[in-house]
């Protein structure tokens, strides 16, 4: 596309900026000096603007995903009252370098995908970008070797210093109108346009840092070096401070928390930047941390940039700005240095090894963050720890879930947590979840009574493809609370309306102790059902506990399966349980001759946003909340982080 290019004298440019400031329509943000560094900040006068900056401390992501962002306000006095926060301050950002513009296009890909982030979109739509070609190269930048030092689109206007004046490349209608309204410009001559290229070229030789591996090769290069000794070597001196992710223009993971005013009348839900270098990043309610070692977290950051996001979106999520290199105290965060240090190692072809491409039905569209109201209809205390809730959507519409999907349940003031749906699909607006009391949300939720209101987002995630089970024998194996989502599937399958479609069914269920067995009533029903074998075991049992059944891990139930009934090739095994269980159960299934593509699992991770944005539930390149939690084993068996 041929872009229109204008010229503006430097004096007129300052007047242009001042008239934008004086007009007060926009928050006019530009690059300003801070000590020896630069920051983006609101301008009160055009003289403050520094277009000769090398790099800013923080990238402009702070204007699209603010450090602390109010997502919604809620009232604690009313049963259910929530209001999404939408205040779009029209803004102009002046001086964005090409690499930051490219980083913004990348965050667009994440935040404006099929499940659009309302807040991001609102800010993005109300912001104009006036980019600036680089006039000073940061010591640590390697943008030239990442080909992110020059940009052709992604801006409304782009300034290039061509000596006595700037050229202004018009990138959008909005930019064109802004210029027409506020600036004195002339048409650029052919000579002016030639100078743009000269100005850009003259900068290229100023890059001290060059990455030796072309970015298109990063995905394969990283895969080949997944077990390189350098990850650990660098992790040994890592401060785990996550400064690298904070200053990164392409690190856009976030955490969410509720705060409540001191009078306990109102509260707000805030999201804030989170960092995958922090230990708590992957921590789930039960206390499990999925990347416990610093090495794993350190490596994850590079893989996310160089392999996982490229597989998903088609771009390397590093733009060579060098900010992490500046921010990292032991200087181990800079991708350029890291890649160059490992560069003498070979490449591997299978770049998609840690990623699965999948056609998915997207559960929640439209407003993705604000929960809908639901009412507690029935409460069954299953035991000391576990409570079963029947919830009814207040809009009286069925949830529309498939077995295996989950919902995010909100208790305003406390927070939000994911729960597997334990009831089979239905046309009614009701569904069930089971709550085990372990954290803040689960503890408070356990105290709810019929008539109380909760917030629901969902159904979310990828559930079971029930059709694919038709005509098959099925072995269900679940441990602990793995029975929760499993029950949804089992009850669908054993429902007399559907039972004929499936062949022999075996249900193996292991709980820690007799009192932790959930859904005992269902278990009794399954035991009575025709052509259903149901076996239950407990890990441990004190003499004081009343238990006449098996004692031992769930794997001890496998010899009881009446194998004569099973043709292993025509048998599907569904496995859901705590992380430690999978390895052993899958081994048993393999011994039975069940092929990997017949094994289906559902995994637990920290599913915070449920819509593939916040980054917490990643298992290598996949999002548990999107591609999962239900997976075919053969699709993810190669993922080192899936079953470690």
């Amino acid at each position, binding site marked *: 596309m041929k872009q229109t290019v204008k010229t503006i004298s430097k004096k007129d440019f300052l007047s242009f900026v001042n008239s934008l400031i004086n007009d007060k329509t926009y928050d006019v943000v530009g690059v300003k000096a801070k*000590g020896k560094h630069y920051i983006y900040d609101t301008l009160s006068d055009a003289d403050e603007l520094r277009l000769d900056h090398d790099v800013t401390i923080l990238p402009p992501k702070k204007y699209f995903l603010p450090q602390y962002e109010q997502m919604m306000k809620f009232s604690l006095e009313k049963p259910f009252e929530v209001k999404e926060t939408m205040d779009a301050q029209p803004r102009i950002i002046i001086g964005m370098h090409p690499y930051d513009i490219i980083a913004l296009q990348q965050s667009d890909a994440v935040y404006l995908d099929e499940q659009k982030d309302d807040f991001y979109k609102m800010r993005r739509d109300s912001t104009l970008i006036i980019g600036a070609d680089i006039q000073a190269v940061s010591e640590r930048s390697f943008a030239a070797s990442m080909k992110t030092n020059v940009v052709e689109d992604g801006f409304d206007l782009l300034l290039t210093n061509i000596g006595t004046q700037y050229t202004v490349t018009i990138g959008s209608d909005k930019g064109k109108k802004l210029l027409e309204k506020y600036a004195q410009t002339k048409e650029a001559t052919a000579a002016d346009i030639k100078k743009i290229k000269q100005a850009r070229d003259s900068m290229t030789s100023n890059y001290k840092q060059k990455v030796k591996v072309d970015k298109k090769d990063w995905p394969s290069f990283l895969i080949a070096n997944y077990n390189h000794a350098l990850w650990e070597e660098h992790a040994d001196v890592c401060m785990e401070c996550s400064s690298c992710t904070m200053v990164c223009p392409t690190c856009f993971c976030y955490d969410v928390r509720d705060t409540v005013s001191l009078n306990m009348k109102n509260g707000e839900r805030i999201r804030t930047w989170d960092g995958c270098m922090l230990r708590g990043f992957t921590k789930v309610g039960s206390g499990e941390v999925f990347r416990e070692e610093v090495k794993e977290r350190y490596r994850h950051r590079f893989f996310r940039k160089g392999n996982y996001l490229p597989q998903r979106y088609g771009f390397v999520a590093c733009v060579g700005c060098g900010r992490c290199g500046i921010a990292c105290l032991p200087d181990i965060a800079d991708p350029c240095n890291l890649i160059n240090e490992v560069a003498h190692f070979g490449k591997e072809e299978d770049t998609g090894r840690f990623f699965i491409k999948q056609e998915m039905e997207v559960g929640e569209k439209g407003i993705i963050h604000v929960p809908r109201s639901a009412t507690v209809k029935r409460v069954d205390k299953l035991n000391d720890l576990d409570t079963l809730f029947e919830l009814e959507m207040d809009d009286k519409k069925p949830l529309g879930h498939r077995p295996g999907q989950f919902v995010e349940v909100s208790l305003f*003031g406390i927070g939000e947590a994911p729960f597997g749906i334990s009831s089979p699909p239905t046309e009614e607006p009701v569904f069930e979840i089971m709550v085990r009391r372990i954290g803040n949300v689960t503890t408070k939720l356990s105290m709810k009574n019929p008539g109380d209101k909760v917030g629901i987002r969902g159904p979310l995630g990828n559930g079971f493809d029930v059709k694919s089970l038709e005509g098959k024998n099925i072995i269900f194996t679940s441990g602990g609370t793995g029975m929760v989502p499993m029950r949804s599937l089992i009850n669908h399958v054993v429902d007399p309306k559907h039972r004929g479609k499936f062949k022999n069914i075996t249900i193996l269920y292991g709980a820690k102790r007799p009192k932790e067995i959930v859904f005992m009533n269902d278990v009794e029903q399954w035991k009575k059902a025709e052509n259903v074998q149901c076996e239950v075991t407990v890990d441990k049992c004190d003499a004081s506990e009343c238990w006449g059944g098996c004692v031992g891990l769930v794997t001890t139930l496998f010899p009881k399966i009446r194998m004569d009934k099973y043709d292993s090739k025509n048998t599907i095994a569904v496995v859901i349980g705590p992380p430690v269980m999978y390895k052993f159960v899958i081994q048993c299934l393999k011994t039975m001759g069940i092929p990997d593509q017949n094994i289906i699992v559902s995994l637990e991770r920290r599913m915070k946003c449920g819509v593939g944005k916040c980054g917490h539930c990643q298992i290598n390149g996949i999002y548990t909340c999107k591609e999962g939690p239900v997976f075919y084993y053969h699709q993810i068996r190669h993922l080192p982080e899936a079953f470690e």
Partner: protein
Amino acid sequence: MKQKPRVAVFDFSDCEGCELEIADLEEELLDLIEIVDIVSFREVMKEHSDTYDIAIVEGSIMRPMDERRLRSIRSKAKILVALGACATMGGINKIRNQWMPDEVLHAVYGDANVKGNELFDVFKTKALKEVVPVDYNIHGCPIDRDEFKHVITSLALEKKPEIPTYPVCVECKKNENICQFELGTFCLGPLTRAGCKAICPTHNSPCEGCRGLIKKAETDCVKEVLERYKLSYEDIRRRCTMYNYGREECSVDE
């Protein structure tokens, strides 16, 4: 309506600055007394009651008489909250643990005869948790008012307060500060629990570690950083002495 929890505020050896932070809530104090009954708070009121659910305790424990009083508070309270660095970890008061109690007494009171006087019967400084179980900590010197409010509202909502387990750098970077190391000073930010909004580095002063270290100072990464910024080990030792004397690392879950 449910009865409001009864709250009592007590202090031991400290500057009362953290209590002052509570008093400084000013008009928000009216909100505070909407959700809790304050039954004892020497710094701001005359009334006193020995019946309370939540005890908020400031200060360090220095003497046998302090221990007795703290145990008595603990026995009356359902929940005990340590308020500020002196209470949570001993803080500044632990600087004197470098010397024997006799030496300290002599340095301060010279030859004055304090023997046999219970008020001067001091042992090495202790944090509250070294004497009685502590349920929750409100860290800092002084505390952060917003964190105080968060802890109070959490207790009122019967939820566990969410206290950061990550270092000050996270908040410091969000504030877009120039790194203290780059300015040539040793900053404890990378080793110290966040939650203070990085207030010191944001006001151009290095972090002193008043919210407790969440990572050991004697590690390869610190050594590497010291070398890189040409700082001596003495810098870090000195800085850790201020709030973290005798304390290598605290559990992040505290």
